[in-house]
């Protein structure tokens, strides 16, 4: 705001004013629904998760093993070359402790989330997933080793949620 300007336009409207019975508003709830095809790379990725395995794609030119898999390499801009299984263990790259759900509602029991760099994928190639809710957040640290806990085979549907969460890897 310039000191030459005297007034700032705009009228603050409180939540209660918006929701008052006689308030002039229009309300509408969209009812759009979507169904996405999994495409080439993700269809295989998700089908393999249903089998209890994590698969990536390798680009021979830059040498990267990409998870989630892509049919083309965005760096070399050429088709990737082959499917490669990676391990279901990895290292915490970073983590957070959420007291908010997806709609920003407060929750009492926090959701633990992490970016987990997977063993067998290229350095710095991680995925987002949950950490075992039984873990005390204070025990989490970057560099911690984790292992996937898979849902029972019958409950798997071909989704990233076929892994229930990652738990600390027991030594030995």
């Amino acid at each position, binding site marked *: *705001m*310039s*000191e*030459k*300007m005297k007034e*700032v*336009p*705009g*009228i*603050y*409207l*409180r*939540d209660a004013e*918006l929701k008052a019975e006689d308030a002039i508003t229009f309300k*509408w709830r*969209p009812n759009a629904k*979507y169904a*996405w095809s*999994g495409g080439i790379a*993700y269809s295989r*990725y*998700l089908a393999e998760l249903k089998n209890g395995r994590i698969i990536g794609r390798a680009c021979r030119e830059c040498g990267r093993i*990409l998870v*989630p898999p892509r049919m083309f390499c*965005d760096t070399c801009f050429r088709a990737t070359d082959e499917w490669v299984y990676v391990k279901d263990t990895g290292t915490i*790259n*970073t*983590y*957070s*402790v*959420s*007291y*908010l*759900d*997806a*709609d*920003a509602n407060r929750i009492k029991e*926090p959701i633990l*989330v*992490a*970016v987990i760099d997977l063993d067998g994928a290229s350095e*710095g*190639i*991680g*995925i*987002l*997933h*949950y950490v075992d809710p039984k873990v005390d*957040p204070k025990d989490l640290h*970057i560099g911690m080793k984790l292992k996937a806990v898979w849902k029972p085979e019958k409950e798997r549907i071909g*989704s*990233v*949620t076929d892994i229930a969460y990652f738990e600390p890897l027991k030594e030995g």
Partner: protein
Amino acid sequence: MMTIKKRVAVIGAGITLFRRRLKETGKELSYHASKMALDSAEMNLSEIESVVMGTAPDAFDGIHMKSENLLDGAGGTGRPYMRPFVGGGTGVFSPIAGWWHVASGLFDTCLVVAEEKMSPVQPHPQTAFRTIWDPFTTRPLHPNLVWIFALEMNRYMTVHNIPKEHIAEVAVKNKGNALDHPSAQLAAKITVEDVMNSETMVWPVQRLDISPPSDGAAALILASEEVAKKYTDSPVWIDGVGWSLDSSYWTNRDLYFPQYVAEAAKMAYKMAKIDDPPKEVSFAEPYDPFTYKELHHMEGLLLAKKGEAPKLTAEGVTQRDGKLPICPSGGLLGVGNPIAAAGLMKCCEAFWQLRNEAGKRQVDGAETGVCQAWGDLMQVGTVTVFRR
């Protein structure tokens, strides 16, 4: 590679109140900001040859193709009009688009408007963010947008061993600076302890680390050098612009440093012939939707070495009367965060600072200002260099 036909000046700026909810529609807010900008330049709409409208995701207003809806409020009817869009980076990207309208020689004037109404979406704008995730790899995990910023913040803090108290200083400074901004939504005198004791939203992000959802609008008038000189003796020049996007696969990148911001900054500095940013930049308005983002972006803008921005902040270097004032406006943390309008608010601040019109917010000896915005999936950097 680059042929710039015309040097581009800013000759007017306008802004509305920033609030959690404003009674006006988006069109009305756009009109108020545009009209104030035109009045400040002593111009009529008939003298405007082109219009650029910056506005972030349609999902907030709930109006698909909302730039067309906002057209008349932005003075765009019957004119070459466009909407550039790079998510949260849009606010600083829209004057970049305005710049190329004029620098190319296509137009002598361009009105750049940015509008955001985040309040229509119920119960909270966060619900609209649910649609930004990849449907296969991320959406089934029901993420909240704050999660990913907390992940980035933790990575940044851990790699550089940064005390949270140093990051909290950003909220204290920006909310304090905003006390002098008449548009401000969350101006306050607070302490580091207040930030540290505020509710944990998604650790390490606490309540006072976050900017609010807001409604608001802002506008700038751009003109070619010849035309600018007819209207004002004190134009502010856009001497450098830059932008860059990194991969959407954000779990495949190291989040401790925003490389894309550095690429955008290098592009802008090269154009503006800035070799030593910390010495040559008199103040900066990096994007600060979260406390740590101001620090992260100071480093991305090459105004501080990697990991050193928190220390500079704790030492007071970034205060309005410090050696390198950062967010003298009060930033998003203090003035508010109507996404695209918040980015353009930063460019308005650069204009007022470089014209010596910022009143109580005035930075002494302001010669060169840098504005930056950021967004999408932590992947876009937009940078503009302003000079008096």
